[in-house]
């Protein structure tokens, strides 16, 4: 139920709607729940047609660094 699917913003339709590519399937998503602005190329989480979160690319990189730390510290 709380399933949210990662997708890639591939087109800005209007202020409240974008097109999201979810593993090759394109569907419209509502952006009303998001404060941040979106651009083509952003990764987002989609839940029942609404974008609930935008991937923080800086944080994703830091995550990888954290992994390296955990993994190298064997």
């Amino acid at each position, binding site marked *: 139920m*709380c399933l949210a*699917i990662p997708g890639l913003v591939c087109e800005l339709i209007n202020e409240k709607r974008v097109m999201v590519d979810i593993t090759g399937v394109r569907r419209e998503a509502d952006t009303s*729940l998001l404060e941040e602005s979106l651009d083509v190329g952003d990764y987002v989480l989609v*839940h029942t047609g609404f974008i*609930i979160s935008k991937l923080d690319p800086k*944080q994703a990189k*830091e995550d990888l660094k954290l992994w390296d730390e955990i993994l190298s510290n064997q």
Partner: protein
Amino acid sequence: MSEPTQKYRDKNVVNILIKKINTLAEKSSETIRIMHVCGTHEHDLVKAGLRSLLPKNIDLIAGPGCPVCVCSAQDIDEVLWIADNHNVTITTFGDMMRVPSSTESLYQAQGRGVAVKIVYGISDAIKMAEKNPDEEIVFFSVGFETTSCVTAAEVARTNLPNFSVYSSHKVVPPAMELLLQRDDLEFDGFLAPGHVSTIIGAKPYEFIPEKYNFPVSIAGFEPVDILLGIYAVLEQIVEGTARVDNMYKRYVKYEGNPAASRIVDDAFVVSDARWRGLGVWPETGHEISDKYAHIDAKKKYNIPNLPTEDLRGGCICDEILIGKSKPQKCELFNKSCRPDHPIGACMVSHEGTCNVAATYEEIIWEE
């Protein structure tokens, strides 16, 4: 092309994490119990076979994290009462269709002529109401914070005389507190749900380490995400510390999604909620606020007190839901109660604990 999830499924990373989890777990001679409260966690971790990879002294317990499973029979009874007495069309998620009410499921009700339609989400139910102004549409809405915000956004911007919402929404952190306060449950740490946390953030869990000195980690859903969450909470348990570790930072910010939270606070008020087989849990529900009373099906239709029965025919969903019993302990499990013929609510949704155990033939649960 989707998020580059492949790296969160990397077998080598999984193997190294399992080794590290093993090293940590060896420091304890006791069984370490970690409870998650998310149906998607249960489904994804079992599908990936993670339980069988974990050390023997780690027991990963499924808590009440499947909103369809925790939905009380009375809520479905009431929705069906509205349908039977007011000639409305019920719209809801596909997952709700086979969940038992006191007497029948929505699917069975459909068989005797009640208009029930499956929708992808509330937005499709609203479109249906717009296209059919002569038809009364009720959207039966279930879900935790992840889904509440979507319902809230639509409630706040919809004003159709023929559309209303029956809310069976629930909130996670107060339910976690009630689990902690139970004498009949024993566990050592919480794995907090990643997608609920995208909305509420990490902050609402902080009372758990502060007030109960109890470890929490927030985890995502890919195998590496889940194992990192387990690793983080296990480290706290073994070290005897307690804090909230956010292991899903790429999507979960400390403050969550403030815009979504504001929308939820506007459209909903926190209320007491009925949980299947578990009675009323104070302040764990979301009812539509007075500001949007015109769209609240509970106010629009004068629902009488209905006799209700959550558990039928020996079902122990009440114990399964809080992780007190494993599905295999239930006498009905995989006999009369199966994914193709569910008797209890936990066997219905593909995220229900019993459904997952039956579908993936999980046999590692030993007493």
